[in-house]
């Protein structure tokens, strides 16, 4: 009797406690993701009309659309560049900050992290002005050493690297923090042994630190890919995809087609493609470092 009462009570608590969060997730995450798949099979270019079923047509058109393929290429360039450069810089800086001889270590660590908590809109506005070809601080400095410094955001060759620089500036603090946590876990004996073997500081970095950082690095690569692949704010504010689509990342392409041209079906197909790409990266991450296993490393 008591047993039954207990288990009924248990069920109602479970239901009551989970109900609000499950409702919100179903309504605002699971329903939309399913609806994105459904909508991607329709052509819907006019809000006043009903969507027309077209099957895989949207996908077919996308993969024959040079602008879309270009946006994937731009996004991939951005992603690979920002991820790897911030990993390399993060590894170097984390090792410097980990050196007990360095004064003001915590203060420096905080400074490196500041850009990560700075809003992207703010960072983008600062970038616009610092990289202004005529009045910007960067070109004021560069004019001392060259006659014609680049036009940065309006130069097709420099626009993307300038945005990538912003991405790296905001990302490197994250990689530093993660590497610093991982560095604490290398047993000191390893360094003692390599010292006894006659290794200098650089050699022990190369042969002790680097191999120990491999799991963390793999994790940072996948996390960096996921984070950078979804870049949007800074591109919208600095270049809006220009000049001549050289900075048109895939999220901006989605925004333009779905929300300014109202091609909702096409937009949904782009959504699904983004979803699949991120899913594949996430699955690779789980294969490499396990499901949410960062706690094991830190």
């Amino acid at each position, binding site marked *: 009797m008591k047993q039954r009462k207990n288990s009924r009570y*248990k069920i109602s608590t*479970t239901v009551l*406690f*989970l109900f*609000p*969060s*499950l409702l*919100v*997730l179903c309504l*605002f*995450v699971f*329903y*939309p*993701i399913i*609806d*994105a798949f459904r909508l991607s099979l329709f052509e819907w270019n006019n809000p006043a009309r009903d969507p027309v079923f077209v099957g895989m047509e949207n996908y077919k058109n996308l993969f024959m659309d040079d602008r879309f393929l270009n946006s994937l290429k731009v996004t991939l360039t951005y992603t690979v560049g920002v991820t790897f450069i911030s990993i390399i810089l993060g590894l170097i800086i984390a090792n*410097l900050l980990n*050196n007990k001889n*360095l*004064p003001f270590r915590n203060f*420096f660590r905080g*400074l*490196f992290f*500041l850009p990560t*908590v*700075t*809003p*992207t*809109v703010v960072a983008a506005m600062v970038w616009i*002005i*610092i990289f202004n070809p005529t*009045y*910007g*601080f960067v070109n*004021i400095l560069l004019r001392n050493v060259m006659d014609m410094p680049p036009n940065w955001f309006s130069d097709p060759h420099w626009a993307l690297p300038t945005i990538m620089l912003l991405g790296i*500036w905001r990302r*490197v603090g994250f990689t530093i*923090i*993660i590497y610093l*946590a991982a560095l604490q876990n290398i047993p000191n004996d390893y360094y003692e042994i390599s010292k006894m073997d006659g290794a200098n500081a650089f050699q022990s970095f190369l042969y002790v630190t680097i191999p120990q950082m491999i799991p963390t690095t793999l*994790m940072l690569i996948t*996390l960096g890919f*996921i984070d950078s*692949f*979804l870049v*949007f704010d800074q591109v919208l*504010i600095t270049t809006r995809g220009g000049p001549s689509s050289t900075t048109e990342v895939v999220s901006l392409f*989605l925004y333009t087609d779905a*929300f300014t041209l109202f091609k909702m079906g096409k937009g*949904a197909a782009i*959504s699904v493609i*983004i*979803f699949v790409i*991120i899913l594949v990266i996430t699955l690779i991450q789980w294969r490499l470092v396990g*499901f*949410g*296993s*960062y*706690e094991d490393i*830190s």
Partner: protein
Amino acid sequence: MFKHMSKTLLNKVFLLLIILPMVFLMVMPYMWMITASLKERGHVSEPPYLVPNTFDFSNYSKAWNGAPFGKYFSNTLFVAVVVVVSRIFFGALAAYVFAFIDFKGRDIVYFVYLSTMMIPFYAIVIPLYLLVNDFNWLNSYQALIFPRIVDAFAIMILRQAFISIPREYIDAASIDGSSHWYILWKIVFPMCLPSVITSAVFSFLFIWNDFFWPFLVANDTNLRVIQTGLQAFTGRYLTEWTYWMAGTVIASLPPVLLFIFAQKYYISGLSRTGLK
């Protein structure tokens, strides 16, 4: 002894020489931003660039009055407070179930919750926009708040904290006849305050720095939040860079101050972003 000391000193100077240029590159945009925000209007491209020598605070009052920054601030604060409190409230309820109540299929349900973290916002934004439109929520606080009030990351952080509590505490309270509601809020929750703060800090920074969703659903002047307000500001004061920089300094202060004071909590949360 002396030789040893001078060697460490040399080492220190050497390390500082390597790291200072990198620190400078990271900090330079802030120095420039603050200096520019204190210059007289139209003098942005004149020296000094990185250390202010004039202190013209009028840019701040002009920027503050030139756009309804007060309104942007209170809008963002309102949304942030509601979102932070609900994420912790609903998150704690769910985390309690996943930590302490056994039922068949619990791990699957938890996995389903966590799986929402790997769904990128751009994958759901179109149907979400249409849904919010169907609810007649465009240009309303509802659109800014309701889709955000549950966050799997907060649930994950809270559950990790909850399961570290010794089981005896829970069992003892159960035997005393305390309800789950009582155990959660009077025993478990107060023991996990650091994790509560961590998830509050994350949620606050997320809302404060959020741009794309408010830009889509609430771009009405009265409903703009701080980031969309700033973006609109750049359109209105095209080359008034001293005002721009005053605006960016104002908008950066809350997250930067929060980071400085809650660094410990923020960083402990970051090291758990394995899934994000």
